[in-house]
């Protein structure tokens, strides 16, 4: 908006006291164009909000019956009206935490290696490969985890249970505890194995967000660190890592959201239980999405409603995490990271 109080600069025109009003006149084509794009946006937002609305609507009958016990009950018998995510939700989070415990150091190292250490040509190739890895479908990871990783990880599980069994989460209760020669059955289909497999899926996602943030660390500050006599690691520690903190947190949260929602891997590998199983090395675990995937087929009308309630809980959980993640990334110096 331009308001001219002073007399016009050009000497020829007589001074006017009327204020000039600047208004954009949109022609009919523009109005149509705006209406069409707005319609697209409204449809998209309608679909996105519809997810929450429909999950809520369909979950309502079950939630009315279960009330707040839905959050604490560790049984899933919807037809007897005894059901809840008191066991499944912690197990879901446990899988995600195992995945993050493995994926964070690896993806942090990988992204730092790509952005700081690899020579230029290798760097481009590695970025391409990481992007490709992010596009590998989860079923491929799931099949590999089911048939390959499981067999090769039992040794690690048994080692941890034998030597670190005094740490509560590594304890394996049952016939195999403390017995090196015990059967390996107690270690299959565990939260630990699923978590390892899910971590592989999450690494490329986390890596690309982190790398993007690291690569934006200002050149001036990097060179300042070198000019002060810093080593490369000193430069990374004092310039790159603080600068990319938003990217690290944001990438971690995105990975967490993905790990919480992973369906197929959990469904294929784990042997489902509905109670909390803190012993991550021991057989048995579950996740909300695997619960839905396993039970939707045989569920009664009320059972379906109960599954919808579980889905709504997962929806709220992941949405909350994503909002926090995007806020953190958006507020950081590195700015908003690239899409995942």
């Amino acid at each position, binding site marked *: 908006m331009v308001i001219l109080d002073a007399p016009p600069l050009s000497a020829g025109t007589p001074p006017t006291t009327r204020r000039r009003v600047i208004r954009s006149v*949109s022609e009919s084509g523009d109005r149509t*164009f705006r209406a069409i*794009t*707005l319609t697209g*946006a409204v*449809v*998209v*937002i309608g*679909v*996105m909000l*519809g*997810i929450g609305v429909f999950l809520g609507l369909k979950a309502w009958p079950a939630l009315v019956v279960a009330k707040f016990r839905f959050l604490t009950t560790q049984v899933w018998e919807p037809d007897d009206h005894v059901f809840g995510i008191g066991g499944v939700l912690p197990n879901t989070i446990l899988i995600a935490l195992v995945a993050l415990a493995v994926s964070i150091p*690896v993806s942090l*190292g*990988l992204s*730092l*290696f790509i952005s700081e*250490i690899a020579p230029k040509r290798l760097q481009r190739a590695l970025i391409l*490969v990481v992007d*490709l*890895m992010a*596009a*590998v*479908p*989860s*079923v*491929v990871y799931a*099949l*590999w985890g089911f*048939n390959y990783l499981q067999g*090769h*990880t039992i*040794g*690690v599980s048994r*080692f941890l249970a034998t030597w670190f069994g005094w740490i509560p989460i590594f304890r394996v209760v049952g016939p195999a505890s403390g017995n090196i020669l015990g059967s390996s059955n107690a270690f299959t289909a565990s939260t630990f194995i699923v978590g390892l497999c899910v971590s*592989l899926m999450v*690494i490329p996602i986390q*890596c690309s967000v982190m790398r993007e943030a690291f690569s934006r660390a200002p050149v001036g500050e990097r060179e300042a660190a070198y000019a002060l006599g810093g*080593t*490369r*690691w000193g430069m990374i520690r004092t310039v790159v890592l603080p600068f990319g903190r938003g990217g690290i947190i944001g990438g971690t949260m995105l990975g967490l959201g*993905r790990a919480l*929602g992973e*369906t*197929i891997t959990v469904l*294929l590998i784990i042997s489902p239980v509905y109670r909390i199983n803190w012993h991550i090395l021991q057989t048995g675990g579950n996740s909300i*999405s695997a619960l*839905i*995937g396993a039970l*939707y087929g045989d569920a009664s009308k009320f059972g379906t409603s109960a*599954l919808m309630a579980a*889905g709504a809980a*997962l929806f709220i959980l*992941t*949405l909350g*995490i*994503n909002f926090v993640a*995007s806020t953190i990334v958006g507020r950081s110096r590195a700015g908003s990271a690239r*899409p*995942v």
Partner: protein
Amino acid sequence: MSVTALGLVPNDEDRSAAPRSTPRKRARSTFIAVNAFDLVGAAVAGFSITILISRLTALSGLIGLFFLAMGLFLVTYTVLVSLREDGVAVRDAVMTVFLACAALVAFGALTLVIVYTIWRGLAALRHINFYDHDLSSAGPTSPLTKGGVAHALVGTLWQVGIALVLSAPLGILTAVYLDQSRSRFSNFVRTVVNAMTALPSILAGLFIYAFWILTLGFQFSGLAAGLALTVMMLPYIVRTSDLVLRLVPTELREASEALGAPRWRTVWHVVLPTARSGLVTSVILGLARGIGEIAPVLLVAGYTTYMNADPLHEPQVSLPLVAFKLVASGIPTYAERGYGAAALLLLLILILFIIARVIGGFGPGHMSARQRRRAQRVSKRYLARIKSSIGPDAAAPGGIQ
């Protein structure tokens, strides 16, 4: 005037003419032989101690031994370097090697996943019937020469095709809206879409199940699966397209508007063509993501071993779903076919990815040689028209001022 002419930087002749104070070229490489000895020595030590430990304790399995060896290698390397260097240099050397190790672990694992899948899938991929038969004729004991996954291929094409037709226009339209509008509503749309990009895919399936099948009463079908994939791919396409459109230079838009073009012409003739390759890439990568998803399809498409080319009625399966079901069945011949389907899926995604890279390798505004020639022809035509309209004076050598 160049910098050299100002005498600020000596050019090559000056430099060669000046007497050299140091006859030898300065070595700038940070890599010296002792580093290599440290690395090799630490690797050998780590490997040996790992074997020792694996004999003494119960640790078995390649994965565990590999990580143990890596940890021991790092410890040994630290000790070796600290014999010669001080604290800061040791930390630098060790962290460099540690980061390289992390990269090695990640790439090793991810390569293993892909190679393993293709290796296991080769047995099934070798037979022609794998591509043009459905599974209905193959019992649990049938050899790999009977039955295939043609029904899943057809299902994947239908479902992904439906998702593409719905999500690409809608996604790009929304991205254009976000690009053009600066209102509270557009901020809201952007926030919601960003949050939805990491929506667990099973919830997309659950939504279509609740809405399309339970509420509207349609049956399990390929269309429902396509809708679920649309819901999943939509936020991704909107978000990436939005970012691509933001890269279109403001100067181009302003030039167009300064010439008096209305908004829609600016978008249609300037913004979208400039961002074309980026938009195509975002759609293809969204497609690559949708093609491999099972969770949404699992809930709404049903499962069948028969060919079903009609996406509107009856269950229809897709490649990832077939791979999952066959391997989960636990029957060896089925599992082989399952890995075949997974390998086929990987190849499809690889092809999509390569196409996306070839198209999207160029930034906004980049033109191929043919496009540039065409643009030049058009410019020449305009120039001729302008010259003829403003008379012979301007057509004199020197052109338009």
